[in-house]
């Protein structure tokens, strides 16, 4: 072990942007290998008492964590602990454990770990993702019980064990770890498992520390790392960097720090162009954990609250009241800023439902409103919760994934019906709540004038619009050369949509990735967009560009882009304009 290895690059999924350079801290949750110790008959009772005491202690701990989580991370984080309380109260599990201790003459910690592993294995085998994911929850709860019984498996308190600020390396981060993490303690987070919506990814984003998840093999190198670099932009992990790599990253990190200071300065300035056009810069969020970032970066509000993550991360599918508390929290904390909530936009593969058979082409199958119409109860509780939280008049609704007018009319009727229902119950809500749609299916663009008469605003989703317009799956690497948001056809679609909105006097914003591409921003302003929604930390970057633009020059640029016929021509027009008017590209 401890053999120094040469520079090595591992690749993972970028989860939170930034560069971290430092030493690794081993936060790997050891596989629970509690060794079996035989105990004599007269020790059995003492072990059972110890076990029951640990149960009580763990229960108190979880209740405490739940309270802190509600304070720090919001209702949504607290919800996970509710489920853990159900598990710890499982009488059959308790009886099984007690019986195992007394019938096998083993110590309590072994019994807990043995039974936990049996359950885990059974859960992991389940086909349905919702149920198989519960293996993590059982593991988390059992680890806590065992920790509370033994002195060896100490609870790691990061504030006491870290050698200065370090990069935390873990196989997986559990909900119960959350409260242990603090921006002042850690440089970055790297995990072996997990994807861009894993608990680790959301946590690191809310802490604003660089993170890369799903780095397979990282834990194997732990003992051989003397220094490492985490590149949260590209998902690269560089182990024992060469002096030249180290220097170049050090430089980038330095520039980044300067950038952050400058960004903070910019975030306090008004978002107006040189010719005094006010541009709203909103944020895309998917969790209440991101509220603080919205405020910190002085965003004008939330242009897109993706509700999918709430449902995917929660152990229970959320009830109406659970949802209400989350939407109410976002509305309250961000008031008077606006909050635009997009109705649940998931594919059938995500819902725990046998009815949604596996589809060959889920991106064109039952997703968004198509799925919600199939689940009237789910849609009803979703709408009730949003409306109930709308009393401050800062919430609006986006209808996702619509291809024709009838879907819009149907959703609006359901919203009206829900309002009547709430009114008859004497509940308060915003009777004039604004309803918009995602413009992401090309058919809607082609009939956008007619659609504009039915809704209060358009929100353009460029990622899906590009994918559906060019018939190129954005997740498929083999067609990534075709998937191109600068395709002149995409630009024309944006132009048609914005013109229709202006003609019918409704709002129009853009919430796709395109709003975060620096070189695309002059084009978007030129096309007439005055609302852009981006990841919270990009707000100052966008603002900085906007403050250097003259919207009239942008209009000329847009007109030029609308006349060319290749993406290459669009790109070169945009780059030239950027170089002349903005100078350096703030995102490199």
């Amino acid at each position, binding site marked *: 072990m401890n053999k120094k290895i040469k520079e090595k690059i591992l690749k993972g999924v970028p989860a939170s942007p930034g560069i971290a350079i430092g030493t690794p801290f081993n936060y790997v949750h050891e596989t629970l290998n509690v060794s079996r110790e035989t105990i004599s008959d007269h020790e059995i009772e003492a072990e059972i008492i110890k076990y029951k005491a640990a149960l009580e202690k763990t229960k108190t701990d979880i209740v405490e964590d739940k309270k802190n989580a509600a304070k720090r991370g919001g209702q949504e984080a607290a919800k996970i602990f509710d489920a853990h309380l*159900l598990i710890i109260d499982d009488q059959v599990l308790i009886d099984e454990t007690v019986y195992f201790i007394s019938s096998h003459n083993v110590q309590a910690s072994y019994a807990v770990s043995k039974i936990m592993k049996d359950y885990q294995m059974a859960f992991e085998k389940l*086909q349905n993702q919702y149920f198989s994911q519960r293996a993590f929850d059982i593991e988390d709860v059992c680890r806590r019980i065992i920790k509370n019984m033994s002195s060896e498996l100490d609870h790691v308190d990061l504030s006491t064990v870290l050698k200065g600020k370090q990069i935390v390396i873990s196989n997986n981060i559990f909900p119960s770890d959350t409260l242990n993490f603090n921006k002042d303690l850690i440089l970055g987070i790297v995990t072996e498992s997990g994807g861009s919506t894993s608990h680790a990814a959301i946590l690191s984003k809310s802490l604003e520390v660089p993170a890369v998840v799903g780095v397979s093999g990282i834990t194997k190198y732990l003992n051989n790392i003397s220094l490492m670099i985490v590149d949260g932009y590209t998902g690269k992990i560089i182990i024992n960097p060469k002096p030249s790599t180290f220097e170049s990253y050090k430089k980038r990190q330095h520039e980044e720090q300067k950038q952050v200071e400058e960004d903070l300065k910019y975030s306090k300035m008004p978002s107006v162009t040189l010719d005094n056009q006010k541009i709203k810069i909103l944020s895309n969020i998917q969790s209440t954990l991101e509220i603080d970032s919205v405020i910190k970066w002085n965003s004008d509000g939330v242009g897109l609250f993706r509700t999918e993550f709430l449902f995917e991360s929660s152990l229970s*599918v959320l009830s109406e009241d659970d949802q209400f508390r989350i939407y109410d929290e976002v509305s309250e904390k961000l008031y008077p800023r606006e909050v635009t909530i997009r109705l649940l936009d998931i594919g059938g593969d995500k*819902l*725990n*439902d046998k*009815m949604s058979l596996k589809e060959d082409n889920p991106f064109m199958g039952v997703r968004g409103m198509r799925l919600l119409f199939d689940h009237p*109860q*789910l849609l009803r509780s979703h709408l009730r919760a949003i409306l109930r939280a709308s009393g401050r008049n800062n919430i609006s609704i986006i209808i996702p994934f619509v291809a024709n007018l009838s879907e819009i009319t149907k959703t609006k009727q359901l919203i009206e019906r829900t309002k009547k229902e709430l009114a008859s119950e004497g509940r308060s809500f915003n009777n004039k709540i604004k309803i918009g749609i995602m413009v992401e299916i090309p058919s809607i663009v082609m009939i956008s004038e007619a659609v504009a008469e039915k809704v209060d605003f358009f929100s353009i989703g460029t990622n899906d619009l590009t994918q559906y317009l060019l018939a190129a799956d954005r997740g498929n690497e083999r067609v990534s050369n075709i998937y191109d948001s600068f395709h002149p056809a995409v630009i024309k679609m944006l132009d048609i949509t914005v013109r229709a909105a202006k003609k019918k006097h409704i709002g129009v914003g853009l919430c796709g990735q395109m709003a975060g591409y620096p070189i695309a921003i002059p084009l978007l302003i030129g096309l007439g967009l005055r609302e852009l929604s981006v990841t919270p930390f990009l707000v100052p970057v966008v603002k900085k560009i906007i403050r250097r633009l003259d919207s009239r020059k942008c209009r000329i640029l847009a007109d030029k882009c609308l006349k060319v016929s290749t993406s290459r021509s669009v790109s070169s027009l945009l780059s030239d304009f950027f170089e002349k008017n903005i100078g350096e590209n703030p995102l490199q």
Partner: protein
Amino acid sequence: MIVEKVKIINSLGLHARPAAQLVKITTRCDCDVFISKDEMEVNAKSIMGVMMLAAEVNSEIIIKCNGPDENLCMNELKELVKNKFYEE
């Protein structure tokens, strides 16, 4: 002992909260309660067990109650399932 087949009709199936509702009833009853689906049978007084069935909408489960209050228990459980766990 009484045995009955019941169809799960709430759209999300026996996920955590419905499972908790079900266990609340079974643990209150004196009789033994077992539920099976396909090849698997679990003790219905355990939330972990009930969730392990991974019973989705439209799946059929078999409830077995055995003990002094078996009729009462079965009726309550059927009522719960029929009313979609009072969630929808």
